[in-house]
């Protein structure tokens, strides 16, 4: 059902012009023909030029590329899958619209089925399936943005953030996750595009959770998003991204970097649900700094992708800071969810809690990798870690690799982990009350995930439950 080439080009040109108007780049048609795979300084330069970035950002990108070349692939984790990434065969920059060249026929069956079950409206399906270029929510989005602006809140995509608030970005970009942090952070620093930029002024309480474009936004579904969130003293904000519906993308490598800063007394909650299609490698570096009496919470749901490696981190830098990481991972056949949490206690009277729940089904593998590091000066701090893993099916696998490094004796650190299958007694109890075994198992799994689900906004929770139901029936992939 593809339009004649001429029409296609006309549509694309119109869209490009819109893009140009918003992001200020020219020569869109030339670029459309570029489509080069692989990564080198030329590609990096092109990205920077097209975005018309300040010199310092351009220099950082080039420097980051050198660091990317110099660092080896991690020798830990799923080294087998990691070694399959073919860096030379990836498009490192595509305008969002160019990605959406698939036809509905190309969208995998399991994705279509999921859309059906989740009741995703057709317009959304087209977008999520990579068939259509944009989602028509512009009008609503713009009016929401105006409201925020009145309170002095900045909520933009990262490209715009750099353009409109270069001073803030220059101050904080890379201040939490420097270029040399790891290979994929270096990659992201070199080729980042899109992501969110949020600044909340002192004392402002953002009452409505900030969602990236009502969950759907080409810029926020990019391969190499860079997100920077700053809550100034006493500010409060809740940011949500992702969606439970699967997102189909032909790009196989997604490597995002998220930096979050909560100044004194501020409070930030960052909720993510990712359900990337099963061909994707999702390698994310997310880290937050919490200053005195500030709170940071990561609520992280990992459902999709072939391999996800993500360890949200909170650095507690000021006295009285608090961190909480709540993570859920569902690994179905052929998937490896390698998730975890890291907390660094670098000040006295800090507290943290990590709760990790994972489900491995059939030939799925869920791993928890965590770090709790308590420095010498963090006296009177408290840490508690709880990891629960549920195994369903003979082939399922669960790993737990928590590390605790404690350099201060005036602290309390507790860690607990449990691995089990769905308990026979529970199943028996429920089936004896008239539920089928499938229904009983689903109820148990939902109960297992409850501490996570109850932290989600309602529409996410509902969708998540439906998605789990689908996964449990084994009718996906």
């Amino acid at each position, binding site marked *: 059902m593809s339009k004649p080439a001429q029409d296609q080009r006309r549509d694309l040109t119109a869209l490009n012009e819109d893009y140009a108007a918003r992001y200020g780049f020219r020569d869109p048609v030339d670029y459309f023909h570029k489509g080069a795979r692989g990564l080198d300084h030329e590609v990096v330069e092109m990205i920077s030029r097209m975005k018309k970035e300040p010199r310092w950002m351009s220099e950082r990108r080039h420097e980051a590329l050198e660091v990317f070349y110099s660092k080896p692939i991690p020798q830990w984790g799923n080294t087998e899958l990691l070694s399959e990434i073919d860096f030379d065969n990836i498009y490192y920059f595509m305008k969002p619209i160019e990605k959406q060249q698939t036809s509905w026929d190309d969208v995998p069956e399991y994705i279509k089925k999921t859309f059906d079950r989740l009741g995703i409206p057709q317009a959304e399906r087209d977008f999520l399936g990579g068939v259509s270029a944009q989602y028509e929510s512009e009008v609503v989005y713009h009016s929401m943005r105006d409201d925020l602006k009145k309170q002095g809140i900045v909520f933009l995509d990262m490209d715009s953030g750099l353009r409109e608030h270069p001073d803030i970005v220059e101050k904080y970009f890379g201040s939490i996750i420097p270029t040399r*942090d790891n290979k994929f952070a270096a990659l992201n620093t070199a080729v980042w595009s899109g992501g969110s930029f949020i600044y909340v002024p002192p004392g402002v309480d953002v009452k409505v959770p900030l969602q990236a474009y009502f969950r759907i936004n080409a810029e926020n579904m990019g391969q190499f998003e860079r997100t920077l969130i700053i809550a100034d003293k006493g500010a409060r904000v809740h940011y949500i991204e992702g969606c439970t519906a699967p997102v189909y993308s032909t790009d196989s490598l997604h490597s995002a970097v998220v930096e979050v800063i909560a100044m004194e007394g501020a409070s930030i909650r960052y909720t993510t649900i990712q359900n990337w299609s099963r061909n994707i490698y999702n390698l994310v570096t997310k880290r937050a700094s919490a200053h005195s009496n500030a709170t940071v919470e990561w609520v992280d749901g990992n459902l999709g992708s072939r391999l996800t490696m993500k360890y949200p981190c909170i650095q507690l830098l000021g006295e009285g800071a608090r961190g909480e990481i709540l993570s859920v991972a569902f690994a179905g056949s052929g998937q490896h969810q390698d998730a975890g949490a890291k907390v660094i206690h670098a000040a006295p009277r800090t507290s943290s809690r990590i709760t990790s729940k994972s489900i491995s089904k059939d030939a799925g593998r869920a791993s928890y990798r965590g770090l709790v590091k308590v420095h010498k000066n963090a006296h009177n701090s408290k840490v508690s870690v709880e990891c629960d893993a549920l195994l369903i099916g003979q082939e399922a696998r669960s790993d737990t690799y928590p590390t605790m490094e404690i350099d201060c004796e005036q602290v309390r650190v507790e860690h607990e982990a449990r691995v089990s299958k769905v308990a026979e007694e529970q199943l028996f109890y429920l089936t004896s009350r008239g539920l089928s075994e499938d229904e009983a198992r689903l109820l148990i799994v939902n109960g297992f995930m409850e501490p996570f689900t109850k932290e989600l906004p309602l529409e996410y929770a509902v969708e998540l439950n439906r998605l789990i139901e689908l996964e449990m029936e084994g009718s996906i992939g």
Partner: protein
Amino acid sequence: MAEYVKVASVADIPESTLKGFEIGPHRFVIVHAAGGFYAVVDECTHESVPLSEGEISDGQLVCRAHGARFDPKSGAVTAPPAVVPVETLEVKVEGDSIYVALED
């Protein structure tokens, strides 16, 4: 009680270089930067990689692993991903010799 122990000669550590030492349970690095000699514990506060395997750049001590930077004089962090300062040790230079104060 800390005692000053002779650890090296001035000539051993040229300007803008560093050298690691291990004396008993003490592992530290001596840095020659900004015209002076300074000593810090030989362990990056980020992931415990030895700082003696790093280098000096712009008068800062740079860890080879992830690029964390420390000011050799105060031990303060000047670049992430480290967030905690590194402990410093007292250094005394008398004539040609460098002395470091080591706790018993």
